[in-house]
């Protein structure tokens, strides 16, 4: 598996969990402490820390070292990679098939003119 696919795989596994997605959505608004992140969830601190470790391994968050409360920050890089890949694939097919649809209509107009339609 290439390093890129490996990274993408780690990102996707990390995103598969609703709690982790909620943590990321919260961090999109700005950095937070682990205590702050735990607040909206009915979860123990160790459970939240476990989710954060998964996100950290996937490169989606980083922990600050400067302050004692070690703020958690979002790292959007891997998210953009996933988004880019998926969007490229989807765009490719959506746009190709839209073009085919238009082209088929043009062909059928041509067929009518030539009275070749069944």
């Amino acid at each position: 598996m290439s390093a890129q696919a490996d990274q993408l795989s780690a990102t996707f596994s990390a995103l598969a969990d609703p709690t982790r997605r909620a943590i990321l959505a919260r961090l999109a608004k700005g950095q937070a402490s682990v205590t702050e992140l735990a607040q909206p969830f009915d979860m123990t601190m160790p459970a939240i820390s476990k989710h954060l470790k998964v996100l950290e391994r996937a490169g989606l968050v980083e922990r600050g070292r400067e302050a004692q409360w070690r703020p958690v920050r979002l790292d959007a890089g891997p998210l953009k990679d996933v988004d880019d890949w998926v969007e490229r694939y989807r765009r490719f097919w959506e746009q190709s098939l839209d073009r085919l649809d238009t082209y088929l209509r043009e062909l059928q107009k041509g067929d009518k003119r030539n009275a070749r339609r069944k």
Partner: protein
Amino acid sequence: MPVGNSAATTTFTQTSDRELEVSRWFDAPRELVWEAMTKPEHVRNWWGPRGTSLTVCEIDLRVGGKWRFALASPEGDVTFFGKYLEIDEPARVVNTEHYDVPELRDHPAMVTMTLTEKDGRTFYQVNEIFEAAEHLQGAVASGMEGGWRETLDRLNDLVKTL
């Protein structure tokens, strides 16, 4: 086959950790869709995202025959190639598909395209099976809960807030 809908939309489904399905209805008889999908002079008119064009479009439509498409891109041509394994005109084609990038060149996907006609309209369906989950790249997460599309929709929402 989903119920025909006059609003033409392309549907994507991840059917397993290494399998994708793309489908769509076309307001055209099956023979015409088949022509448009298998003849280079037609394929050149639609294959690839808007604004792109094919620099190579070779189709040798017979069992064992090869195909090769190259799309012009600012970073150089992007090439896709493969071999036809089954042909059942105008209903079905099975072929291999190699995406010519270092990670995927030697790992073809198996592509089955089927066309079904109903009331003069055609249902197009492509099933793409990759050799291994990692070759599906974006769809690699096995054990993903809540489904592929849901995760992607949430991901898209999330990315928009960044």
